[in-house]
């Protein structure tokens, strides 16, 4: 008897999830309601796909054989690298950069296989070859250069602080002494804010979105990471969140790739340069990050090595 009951419950729950067909279409939650579809809304550029790209890069050759390029991206950062969970569509500035350079390598946007890679897993994913390219708020620094190569930088961000809208005591990095600040495991702003100069108590979680949730739940008092990321969250949820203070670090974003693949690295830099010159870069920026309230700034000078 008891067994049958349990089985019945099990079947009911499974049936509930199995009825995937026949639900409402479109994005769920707030995203469905607040699409800024005005005539003046900035449009995403279209990128011309290059043909017959020949480069002496093992990674690229493998990708060409496969007919697809695997790009690692973030999935939980609005306006940068975001994946809508009901439509499975990816959007954001990093995503546009990815489409841009993929086009120059000969891959249309339908030939991109996206893989969600979180911050803590980026070096592993790139060096192991799980992804061909990693484009996800990937700060270039010497520590990481030991394990992966970088093309870029294509954007310059700086660490900042995200707080609740009604927060008054935190106004910048100098007022976080003794406050709980959340960031992700091993991130640089976290190391900075931990120093006695700032003296924050830190919480380390796996994803920024987890930090944002903890902030909304008042488990922590602030979230720190790059301003571009934080502004995205604030823009997505203007009722409850805001960004405070001046940036207190340098975070040049680059495209991560296999460490010794100089040919591919140069090709990526060329692609970035070309799109910055023809205006695609600016258009892409204004249709993504620009919407979150960061004004357009000219891209930083490329660093070729």
């Amino acid at each position, binding site marked *: 008897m008891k067994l049958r009951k349990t089985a019945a419950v099990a079947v009911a729950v499974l049936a509930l999830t199995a009825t995937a067909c026949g639900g409402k279409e479109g994005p769920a939650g707030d995203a469905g309601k607040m699409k800024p579809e005005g005539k003046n809304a900035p449009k995403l550029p279209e990128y011309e796909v290059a043909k017959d790209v020949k480069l002496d890069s093992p990674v690229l050759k493998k990708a060409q054989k496969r007919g697809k390029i695997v790009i690692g991206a973030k999935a939980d950062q609005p306006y940068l690298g975001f994946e809508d969970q009901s439509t499975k569509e990816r959007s954001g500035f990093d995503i546009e950069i990815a489409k841009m350079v993929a086009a120059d390598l000969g891959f249309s946007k339908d030939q991109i296989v996206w893989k969600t890679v979180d911050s803590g897993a980026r070096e592993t994913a790139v060096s192991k070859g799980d992804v061909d390219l990693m484009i996800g708020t990937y700060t270039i620094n010497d520590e990481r250069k030991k394990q992966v190569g970088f093309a870029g930088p294509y954007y310059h961000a700086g660490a900042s602080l995200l707080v609740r809208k009604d927060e008054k005591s935190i106004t910048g990095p100098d007022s976080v002494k003794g406050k*709980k600040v959340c960031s992700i495991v*091993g991130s640089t702003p976290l190391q900075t804010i931990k120093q006695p100069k700032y003296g924050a108590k830190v919480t380390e979680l796996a994803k920024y979105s987890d930090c944002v949730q903890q902030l909304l*739940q008042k488990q922590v008092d602030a979230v720190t990471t790059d301003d571009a990321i934080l502004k995205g969250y604030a823009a997505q949820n203007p009722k409850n969140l805001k960004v405070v203070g001046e940036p207190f670090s340098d975070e040049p974003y680059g495209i991560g790739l296999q460490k010794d693949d100089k040919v591919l690295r140069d090709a990526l830099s060329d692609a970035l340069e070309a799109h910055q010159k023809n205006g695609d870069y600016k258009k892409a920026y204004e249709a993504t990050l620009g919407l979150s309230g960061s004004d357009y700034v000219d891209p930083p000078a490329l660093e070729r090595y």
Partner: protein
Amino acid sequence: MNVLLDNLALFREGFIGTVELTAASALLAMVLGVTIAGCRVSPVPPLRIFGTAWVTLLRNTPLTLLFLVAFFVIPEILFPGINSFLLAVLACGFYTSSFVCEAVRSGVNTVPLGQAEAARSLGMTFLQSMRMIVLPQATRTVVPPLSSIFIALTKNTAVAGAFDNVDLFNIAKVLSNDGYDILMIFFWITLAYLVITFTISGLFRLLERRLEVAR
């Protein structure tokens, strides 16, 4: 570069973290487990139902999910600002309590019928006979399974390392991120876990020997 010598302080921190998490969770699991086991054999039906529901629910939920509950639901229910160590102890302790409860209950079931009957005929109440007659005798049969439950708990605390706690898994992650050789990290971390689990089984063997009496 030598992983262990370069990062001795980190290893010590991780080791202590794991030990602390294990000890605190074990304590919570013991208290909860014995209480729930008491509920499950008590004369009050709602308590019995509660005990059964508790065990069924927690035993069939993945620990990782419990961690999500601890970090994203508990603060909503109680109050914000609970520290990560406490939340991790809650998750591990609640999870393990269901196993402790079942071990205690089957221990109670091995105490000979006559013992409880004799206690009753002396006029003892349920609580008295539990406390003075049944539980002390059940202890002996409960110790061996408890040993493996606590060893399992030690291993389970590794999940806490992924949730803002400094433990052996957490430092394995940090060191691997820093680019150290995973083979060596794995070796030392394994050794550390072996030290803890061997200590636990050693302690319990000692306890078993002390409790050993002719029956």
